[in-house]
């Protein structure tokens, strides 16, 4: 799995935020549009695309998109 694809998939979970904003360093929870519903969309995206089960603590402890990517990568088969 590639970070480029992951960043793109993260961007897709945000309807109003410009996709150009997203990089591996983006602190996604600091974006205005971040909400509990977007959090659930991210969990669903990771489940669908990578067959990985993210828990609340994973999202809470991740700051950047890269942080989250590393968790998913470590668990992906």
């Amino acid at each position, binding site marked *: 799995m590639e970070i480029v694809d992951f960043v793109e998939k993260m961007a897709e979970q945000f309807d109003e935020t410009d996709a150009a904003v997203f990089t591996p360093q983006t602190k996604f929870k600091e974006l205005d549009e971040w909400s*509990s*519903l977007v959090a*659930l969309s991210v*969990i*669903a995206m990771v*489940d*669908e695309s990578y067959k990985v*089960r993210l*828990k*609340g603590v994973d999202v809470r402890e991740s700051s950047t998109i890269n942080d989250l990517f590393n968790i998913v990568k470590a668990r992906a088969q």
Partner: protein
Amino acid sequence: MAFFEVKNVKISGISGCVPRTLEENKDLSLFQNDEAEKFMTSTGVRRRRIADENTTASDLCYHAAEQLIADLGWVKDEIDCLVFVTQTPDYILPATSCILQHRLALSQECHAMDVSLGCSGWIYGVSVVTSFLQSGSFRKALLLVGDTSLRSCSTTDKSTWPLFGDAGTAVAFEYTENSESRFLFHTSTDGSGYDAIIIPEGGYRAPFTANSLELEKIEEGIERNKLHTVLNGMDVFSFGIANAPDSIEKLTQHFQIDKENVDLFVFHQANLFMNEKIRKKLKIPVEKVPYSLENFGNTSSATIPLTLVTEKATELSNGINRIVACGFGVGLSWGSVYFETENIVCSNLVEI
């Protein structure tokens, strides 16, 4: 693997009872700006029924049961077994099923017991009742399932208060010799997630103290004490979208059930966002998946029978229905059941 099959038992009727008091989520002061609309769109819950402080889950189930017994024309002395599934019992002790046996004026020759499970509770309740009936020693049984979840939700917690509703249900089962009728189950448990939905204090692990009542602000719009329900939405969501579809896939594969031939897939009504993810993952057409979320919210253990009786009464009363039901949540506990119904009695919804 927890697969099992029960034969020679059928469902004869279903009923439900809800409190008359209704609360509209659009009117809640908990929500700011457009939060209410966003909440209703994503969860699918627009309004819920709320039990007053004098009404318990057993009251709701009692009225549902009386209605159903009357509509079936059952003689009460013939009811051999009563199972009550709830996580909001009348007392810590005694078991509420004993209180219900007396209140319903059932025979003392009645096998009565409580089961403490929530979102998965109806599936487990069906497994218990049908297993008791299958030998033919018991002929008739009542499964009463319900919760007054709002009694333990903080009115100042937007992650629980607008989501849950109160309801009680009754399902009547009968032994039927040499019939085609069978119940097919898959059940699972993962206690590592015991705190994903939890009331932290007031039991025996962390008993009630004066501090239990202290209101704590968790974040904007979430204020609660230690006797209130805590819902870790992200954990429950990731659990549900993975395990509910998995359970149905296992059930249908193990028992060689063709999903195309199933008329109804009735899911625990967690919230619309989660339930739709589950439905789409299983590629089930929307018309086979009824919802009662809009008007009743998440009614915990009662969601599956309440959805059947409020949304599908006409279909259930007329002809054969092949049904898969799936419950998942608090425990963490989950399971699926396949069964068929034929011309069953569906009582009109009782309001008290």
